[in-house]
């Protein structure tokens, strides 16, 4: 493959290249669109809450919805996904409730992770969505280990590792790709190449022609796809997951997209890039897919408005339910370090509640810069 060619099915007007569409039934197509829109709505609401100081931090994924939904669709229930922090949409696709994602962002008793991690560091075992870690890249090799186990146990399952362009510079991108190649592990590596790592542009991240071409260093195929074209994403991801499931080994998929928003609620992109992001408005993955669905009479203005209302409502009630809940109990701070709380920790907990007191309040000025 000559790296820079990029698979595209839908052009910017939502016109599909004849006969190239993956065969997806109408219900699925609509569900995909609904998830993309839900993701956008969640992001907007959460950013809003963060601005109001009601949650501490958030990472928007605006403009990368096709990556999340197309990337998620290709995997089956028994497959495991090792996600990055910029893909709430994949959680929604796989059946995680909006409510539970919101709960994580509040980090109180409603949060299944007991408020231990920052917002957007989700973990949902039931849906095989692995715990998100802040350190970049560490999960890539873990996905390969899980894939090895799947193969070893003949589970017929596949592992997906999602990461960004910056993630390809991390140590465990290298170990992960290399081990997967040698082991022919049933693993799909998905790079959301949004061309920025906070303020660092792609050309300062790597000198390679593309991310996809890095696959050759590990003896696996690499494919570059228009990451704002959800049908192209589904098409390529389906092939990659199929290959893995067939025992043909790993694939690296590069999804070309753009980080339209700030890196996170703490970032100010105007410091390092002008209004470059605007060029990407016209390539919006949601808009493009909506045009396609409308051409096929699967979507309409009315449906759009209706869905928007439902989403607003869902988010409103979720926030209302969750925000009022108390912070996790002090005991949660000492649990889950080991399977059983060891004597030393019991003692520390005891001293804390009996003697040392916990009366003081969270620091109101504490604010996350990144």
């Amino acid at each position, binding site marked *: 493959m000559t790296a820079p060619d990029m698979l595209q099915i839908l052009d910017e007007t939502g016109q599909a290249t004849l006969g190239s569409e993956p065969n997806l039934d109408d219900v699925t197509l609509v569900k995909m669109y609904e998830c993309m829109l839900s993701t956008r709505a969640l992001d907007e609401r959460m950013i809003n809450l963060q601005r109001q100081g009601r949650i501490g931090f958030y990472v928007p994924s605006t403009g990368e919805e096709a990556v999340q939904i197309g990337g998620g669709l290709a995997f089956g229930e028994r497959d495991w996904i090792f996600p990055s922090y910029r893909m709430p949409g994949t959680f929604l696709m796989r059946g995680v409730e909006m409510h539970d994602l919101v709960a994580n962002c509040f*980090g109180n008793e409603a949060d299944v992770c007991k408020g*231990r991690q920052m917002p957007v560091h989700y973990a949902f075992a039931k849906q095989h969505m692995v715990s998100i870690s802040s350190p970049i890249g560490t999960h890539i090799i873990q996905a390969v280990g899980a894939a090895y186990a799947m193969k070893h146990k003949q589970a017929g399952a596949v592992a997906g590792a999602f990461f960004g362009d910056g993630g390809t510079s991390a140590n465990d991108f290298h170990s992960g790709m290399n081990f997967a190649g040698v082991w022919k592990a049933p693993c799909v590596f998905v790079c959301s190449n949004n061309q920025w790592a906070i303020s660092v542009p792609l050309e*300062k991240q790597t000198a390679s022609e593309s991310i996809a071409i890095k696959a050759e260093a590990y003896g696996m195929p690499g494919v570059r796809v228009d990451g704002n074209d959800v049908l192209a994403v589904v098409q390529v991801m389906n092939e990659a997951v199929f290959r893995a499931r067939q025992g043909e080994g790993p694939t690296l998929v590069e999804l070309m997209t753009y980080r339209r928003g700030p890196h996170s609620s*703490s970032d100010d992109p105007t*410091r390092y890039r002008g209004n470059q992001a605007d060029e990407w408005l016209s390539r919006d993955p949601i808009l493009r897919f909506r045009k396609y669905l409308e051409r096929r009479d699967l979507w309409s203005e009315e449906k759009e408005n209706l869905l928007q209302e439902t989403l607003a409502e869902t988010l409103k009630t979720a926030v209302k339910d969750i925000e009022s809940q108390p*912070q*996790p109990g*002090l005991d949660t701070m000492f649990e889950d370090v080991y399977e059983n709380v060891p004597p*030393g920790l019991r003692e520390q907990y005891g001293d804390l509640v009996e003697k040392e007191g916990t009366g003081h309040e969270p620091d109101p000025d504490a604010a996350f810069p990144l």
Partner: protein
Amino acid sequence: MSEITIVQAVNDALAEEMRRDEDVVILGEDVGINGGVFRCTADLQSEFGEDRVIDTPLSESGIIGSAIGMAMYGLRPVPEIQFSDFIWPAFDQITSELSKMRYRSAGQFTCPLVIRTPYGGGIRGGLYHSQSPESYFTHTAGLVVVVPSSAYDAKGLLKAAIRSPDPVLFLEPKRIYRAPKGEVPEEEYVVELGKAAVRREGSDFTLTCYGAMVSVAMEACEKAAEKGWEGEVLDLRTLVPLDEAALLESVTKTGRLVTLQEAPKFCGFSSELSAIVAEKAIDVLEAPIKRVAGFDVPFPYTLEHVYMPHAERVFHAIEEIMAW
């Protein structure tokens, strides 16, 4: 005199040293046009250019490993690790290479450089943006470990670190990056490495601390003073090489010791202070050595304010040893 934040003090120290010595270069993630996620390197790239203020790929082992090579060839790099929680990919370069280069080559090759990195809690950063990693580095011979607690020290110690012939890990307490501000003289100065500072004199007990815990220590001593107990606050400033003389002198005077750190307690840095005193000055001790520290759990997000040692917890420890 001007009143500045620690962020500004770090920025000033870097700018001054880069003007003084053209071999000084900065490298790290987002240190360039973005000026660092905490703004410590703000405007340096526009003054010194992209060759001296380098935005690197996302690889901490790459940042430190390349900085070692630069230093060996004669540059004086000041790599930044964006959060100390992300320093682990570089741990091999630091522990196996940086700290041992001079020794294994019998001085033929050296790599003086300063690793700057923000550490500690208090910004609602959760598990991976809050940790205090000093105890993972103070056990490694060959490294110097510095932790400032004020704008004055941040500037003076960083300048001294950049001029040091030995590799320095410079831990910046991010909780107090922007407040309170502190006075800094207009004229050039450095603060000598390896010397602790007495922040408050007292004869009843010694309270050791560093970084963001210094103000917590001071607050606790105010409470103690109300009870008539005068505490001596020792800001260690340099953890390695430790100012053991200052520690023993103070404890000999007071006969009581409470140590304070943000990092988890077990095998934390302060345990070494207990061990030194128990080995060399046990005869002066009139009470147990109490340690106030983070709990032996990962750093929690929502319960951060409970996890981090606060004046009340410190005061409780003081009460115990005074009541002894």
